[in-house]
């Protein structure tokens, strides 16, 4: 083995750096590229880690696709504080997708992709339907029978609208400035801190 090489520490760092669990096989394949080790060594080292972590607030957990290191439940209270402090934001892609559905409904994913020029990620559609802002209203009678999406009444409620036609008129593309002025009055509480006004990006 290479001088100073420590299998347990290497496995620990790999498990902590990887976004997904790593199986003993995978760890073996990765590490045996460079170091002369056996699969049994891997398993021994993982046992060693489990032992080291006994008094710690993290633990090794074995899940279907391998091993991962996770926080112990005992720090849950603190984690709640960390996660609660964050005000999440939706991505631009999600906002654009939602706006297309709102203004052009009923639309299929294909319609949205044709307009945005990029494919619509499933996670965006899932997020939007998890919030009950969009629903499938039917399937278009063309090959493949793509689902057609529309917005929901929850969507209208969220924005304090009664009907879809209360959505602001499509802004004049050429003169975005007027729009900003107009809408500033309507928007009650804005969290504009981090996002750069779209008009600056063109």
């Amino acid at each position, binding site marked *: 083995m290479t001088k100073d090489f420590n299998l347990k520490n290497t496995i620990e*760092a790999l498990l*902590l*750096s990887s976004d997904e669990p790593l199986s003993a096989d995978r760890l073996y394949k990765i590490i045996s590229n460079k170091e002369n080790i056996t699969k049994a060594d891997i398993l021994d080292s993982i046992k060693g880690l489990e032992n080291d972590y006994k008094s710690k607030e*993290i633990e090794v*957990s074995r899940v279907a696709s391998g091993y*991962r*290191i*996770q*926080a112990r*439940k005992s720090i849950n209270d603190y*984690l*709640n504080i960390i*996660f*609660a402090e*964050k*005000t*999440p*934001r939706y991505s*631009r892609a999600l*906002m*654009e997708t*939602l*706006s297309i559905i*709102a*203004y052009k*409904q*009923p639309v299929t994913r294909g319609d949205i992709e*044709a*307009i*945005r*020029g990029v494919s619509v990620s499933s996670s965006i559609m899932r997020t939007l339907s998890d*919030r009950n802002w969009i629903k499938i*209203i*039917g*399937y*278009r*009678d063309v090959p493949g*029978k793509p689902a*057609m999406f529309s917005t929901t009444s929850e969507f209208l409620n969220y*924005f304090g*609208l009664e*009907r*879809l*036609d209360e*959505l*602001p*008129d*499509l*802004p004049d*593309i050429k003169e*975005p400035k007027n*729009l900003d002025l107009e*809408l500033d009055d*309507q*928007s*009650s*509480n*804005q969290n504009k801190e981090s996002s750069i006004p*779209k008009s600056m990006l*063109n």
Partner: protein
Amino acid sequence: MKTIKDRNKPQQSEMPFAIVDGEQITELPKDLYIPPVALQVFLDAFEGPLDLLLYLIRKQNLDILDIPIADITQQYVDYINLMKELELELAGEYLLMAAMLAEIKSRLLLPIFEEIEDEEDPRAELVRRLLEYERYRKVSEEINELDRVERDIYPSSVETAQFEQPLVLPDIQLKELVISFQEVLKKAEMFSTLHFTKEPLSVKERMIKILEKIENEDFVRFEDLFDLKEQKIGLVVTFLAILELMKELLIEIVQAEEFGTIHVKTLIEK
């Protein structure tokens, strides 16, 4: 154009300005036929006229502070012409620079009158810009080499998904929604094949309503789709919505016999 290869005899080992199919290209292809792909790659390799000028200067080991304007101008214009000949789309900035170079050249040719000794060397402004640009170009290469997350730095993290985290949903403003759509329209305008027309939203909405109404029915009577309590405009909107739904092949209108009851049937398969 044939002169390009004569002028550009390399005098130092050069940096490749493009890589095509894994091969480094350090000079313009010398054959009469220049594959447009190579030229496009060449053009893409430059970040604008200043970058191209710097390349020409560096390539010949010239002193940036004492550029032989006539030569450089000629070379620059040759490149530009080459690109134009191949009908490559040139950013306006390239042409502006060509004009600027030509202007400097002509001013250098003018006899110098002693009275106007205040006047700067006509190249001064260009040199200043080249030097300034070069500083940032160089430092950006250094920054590119810095360790960075996703390439050299791997933050450690543990899984926390097993916790029931309080679900904080992002908040959005109506304004953001409209601005997003505005953004979409702007983008769509760039692919000019897409046309957006302002459509009365109420028709869209009515289409949805109608679809909802008939989705679980086999047939719905045509007149049942209308709410007679509505004003005339409302009835028109409903009628437009039905026409639109027919056009989009979402519903079918069925009439069993002449003057018989008209029925509406959904074409949407659930």
